[in-house]
């Protein structure tokens, strides 16, 4: 594609080029039935304050107890990020006052996170890939939610989210364009979804990103960054970066300087705005939570989790390339979602895998996108799609007829063999019938036949006419052969 898809994309300012440097802090809600330190349900939704334990409400004398499953999930994620797993980590208190923070502090991990450095390979739309470093992953509690729109005079607080386990995944400032940032987020989402450690549902807030953006002259030292808080879609991440980079360049080129600050992305206006300075003037007074012992586990614990890891996107992509002969690009598209990869593999079983890949990424994706349906709701089952590719392969239908068959399959959910049979779409391979149609076309178009001698490409027009006459059912190869037999002399063959 265009230059914008390339690594090291530069932004032109009036005084020259600028490079944008991006790092992401992604908050991913741990898939777990219970909260990080209490037995209350971590499910999304529910009537306000219906998923709240005494611990989550910060009642006097209540104590946190670590949910071992959440620890397992964090380790699983760390393994999926090819990261160092820290067998000893420490929970700290991050102290600040807010009505939706009942304890007056958030339990997080500050100096000793559960997961250390790792790396994510990010596939770019051009087929290229880049590595983005992971600095750390730590576990922390979510806060509750302040509801400002329920009453004209009061703010209400819903503590359902209070205490829900989050993984904060911090990247290195390794991204150089909004496309890379979006691709990184997409890859991260794919990995946690493969692992089953986060549902990646950005609409429900189970994944959200704080985006750190700075700009610099190419090759210069890092510029001062601004942090854009709580961006909750991939599109907004890209938009926020585009806006923020341009804003910083304008400030710098106007002779100003960037001061480190926290900003919010206004997705309606498409701009970032500074948060009120009061909210950023925190000294969180981190210190180890004395209610919790350091979190310790052994190699066996890690090994047990490692043994349950599924095949991850990178490995699956490599296998799709080697096993099915797919292009890296197609393989990358198919492994982006675990469900899509599974669909492809089910459909490709015993079939022409490349053809299946083309149908999945082509007609099927187009139809699903049009209807806003996930692959799990596809009216065309993997098995049916495989069957259809089989019908093409064995010559029962032509690729062209298959397009129509697919539309009917998608609309009715019927099996392709049945559709072909009932609607008489079987490909005509009877040379007599084809020959007759060819003769008819030649006879009724003498002018075109004359033209053909000068313009051999017109043979395609003849193919088209013959196909029309046979309602598309003629075997295209047979039509070609028949035409060549009768008109070949004009083509100098």
């Amino acid at each position, binding site marked *: 594609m265009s230059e914008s898809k390339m690594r090291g994309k530069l932004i032109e300012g009036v005084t020259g080029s600028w490079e944008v440097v991006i790092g992401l802090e992604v908050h991913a809600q741990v898939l777990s039935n219970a909260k990080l330190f209490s037995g209350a349900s971590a499910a999304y939704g529910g009537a306000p304050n219906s998923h709240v334990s*005494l611990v989550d*409400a*910060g*009642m*006097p*004398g*209540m*104590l*946190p*107890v*670590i949910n071992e499953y959440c620890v397992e999930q964090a380790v699983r994620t760390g393994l999926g990020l090819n990261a160092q797993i820290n067998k000893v980590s420490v929970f700290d*208190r991050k*102290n600040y*006052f807010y*009505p939706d923070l*009942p*304890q*007056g*502090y958030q339990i997080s991990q500050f100096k000793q996170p559960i997961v250390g450095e790792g790396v994510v390979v990010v596939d770019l739309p051009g087929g290229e890939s880049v590595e983005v470093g992971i600095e750390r992953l730590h576990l922390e509690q979510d806060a509750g939610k302040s509801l400002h729109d329920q009453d004209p005079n009061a703010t209400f*607080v819903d503590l359902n989210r209070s205490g829900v386990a989050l993984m904060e995944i911090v990247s290195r400032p390794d991204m150089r364009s909004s496309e890379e940032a979006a691709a990184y987020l997409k890859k991260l989402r794919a990995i946690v979804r493969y692992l089953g450690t986060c549902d990646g549902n950005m609409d429900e807030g189970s994944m959200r990103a704080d985006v750190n953006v700075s700009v610099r002259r190419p090759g210069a030292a890092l510029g001062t960054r601004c942090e854009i808080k709580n961006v909750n879609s991939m599109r907004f991440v890209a938009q926020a970066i585009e806006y923020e980079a341009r804003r910083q360049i304008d400030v710098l080129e106007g002779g100003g300087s960037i001061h480190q600050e926290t900003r919010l992305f206004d997705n309606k206006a498409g701009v970032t705005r500074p948060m009120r300075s009061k909210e950023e003037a925190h*000294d969180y*007074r*981190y*210190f180890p939570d*004395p*209610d*919790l*012992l350091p979190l310790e586990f052994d190699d066996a614990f890690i090994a047990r989790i490692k043994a349950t890891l599924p095949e991850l996107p990178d490995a699956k992509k490599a296998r799709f390339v080697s096993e099915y002969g797919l292009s890296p690009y197609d393989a990358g598209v198919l492994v982006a979602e675990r469900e899509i990869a599974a669909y492809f593999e089910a459909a490709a079983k015993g079939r022409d895998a490349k053809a299946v890949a083309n149908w999945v990424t082509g007609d099927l994706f187009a139809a699903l996108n049009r209807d806003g349906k996930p692959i799990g709701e596809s009216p065309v089952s993997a098995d049916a799609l495989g069957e259809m590719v089989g019908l093409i392969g064995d010559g029962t239908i032509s690729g062209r007829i298959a397009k129509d068959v697919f539309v009917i399959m998608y609309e009715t959910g019927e099996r392709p063999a049945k559709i072909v049979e009932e609607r008489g779409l079987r490909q005509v391979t009877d040379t007599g019938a084809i020959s007759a149609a060819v003769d008819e076309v030649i006879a009724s178009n003498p002018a075109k036949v004359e033209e053909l001698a000068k313009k051999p490409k017109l043979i395609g027009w003849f193919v088209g006419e013959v196909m029309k006459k046979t309602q598309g059912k003629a075997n295209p190869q047979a039509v070609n052969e028949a035409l060549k037999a009768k008109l070949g002399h004009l083509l100098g063959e």
Partner: protein
Amino acid sequence: MSDLMKMTLAEAREGLRARRFSSAELAAASAAEIAKARPLNAFIVETPEIAAAMAAASDARLARGEGGALEGIPLGIKDLFCTKGIQTTAGSHILEGFKPVYESTVTQKLWDAGAVMMGKLNLDEFAMGSSNETSYFGPAVNPWRRGNDDAKLVPGGSSGGSAAAVAAELCFGATGTDTGGSIRQPAAVTCIAGIKPTYGRCSRWGIVAFASSLDQAGPMARTVKDCAILLREMAGFDPKDSTSVDLAVPDFEAACNAGVKGLRIGVPKEYRIDGVPAEIDALWEQGIAWLKEAGAEIVEVSLPHTKYALPAYYIVAPAEASSNLARYDGVKYGLRVENDDLTRMYEQTRAAGFGREVQRRILIGTYVLSAGYYDAYYLKAQKVRTLIAGDFKAAFEKCDALLTPASPSPAFGIGEKTNDPISMYLNDVYTVTVNLAGLPGIAVPAGISKDGLPLGLQLIGRAFDEETLFSAGSVLEKAAGFTGKPGRWWA
């Protein structure tokens, strides 16, 4: 006064089992004494109706030949333990009127053992104090007086109400909590026994937190044996407290009779502190002699980092407190001073809800955790803590328990030290090291000051070796042969 209340807890237990009297009678006698003793201000809430109902249930169980280890025994509960449906204040205005919907693990275990609840006992606000004078509900008063002087004396703190109630024979025992000496110092100055168990021995679940890494619940009673009986029921692993330890609870009562023959008792030279009254040192020498006579070997040991303990404690404890008390913000429960501006609501609620000492400690704690100060204060204090624990570890290679004074002075007058926080903090000089190292410590009545006030000795043990403390404590108690009781000036 009914003679019933003069019994020890152990005697009351035997009497109940033998059906010589009923739990209902005990509860009624206790309630009557509590009502008469209101000048002591030991209770914040009295619960005679609850006590009567619990006692009736105990009597029914006893009649069936059933009942737990504390069946029918009237107890007082420090108002730091959350008690279901009963106001729990931590001695603070900010929690006035707060009725928990849950019961602390320790008190639940006591009720499960059949104990009878007489009410909630006064304490320093959020357990911050050594004299019970920081309570929003006014100071509890020591039943003891200096000779014929009728000046009111403090019962020590923070478990001052517990100490006063037990010393005045209002109930047979009480719960206390000890963060820097809050069981042992009040026990020492009111002539009762009190033990701070090893950190992790009793669950902290449902106890209003002061300094989480130091807080530990323990019993206060008139004899060492009574403490042993109570602790057995209070202790035990609780999965709801990540710092509680999964260890079997020994038969502490049996340990009371084990004696000290062959035990090595360490005497730490650094606990001879300048400016401490001679009578404290004399008492200490007396204690050494008693243990020696009973067959213990006395060894001098060194705890070289002792002098850093008090400063380290007054960094760690306020730091944790500043965070633990952040939840009292006017949003969810307790006091709220309304204001349209959120920050003002916080400020005004906390200004009105917390007393001066609590505010002072929140400020100290906030300061020592602040960016730029954390390493110099909090981190350094934690290092000191590690060194102090190391001191004890080394000492316990040479001995089985340590003997020290429990308090640097006898009870002092109400108001005498309130304007001098440093001199108030010095009350904990013998006790804080034990909390910093997480070890068990027991205070035992041992002598009388020149003014006729009780003085106590402290024994410090290895982690989870409370049994040695009960053995040696019983020996001291027996040797001291203490029979004096405070005059019942309040009745």
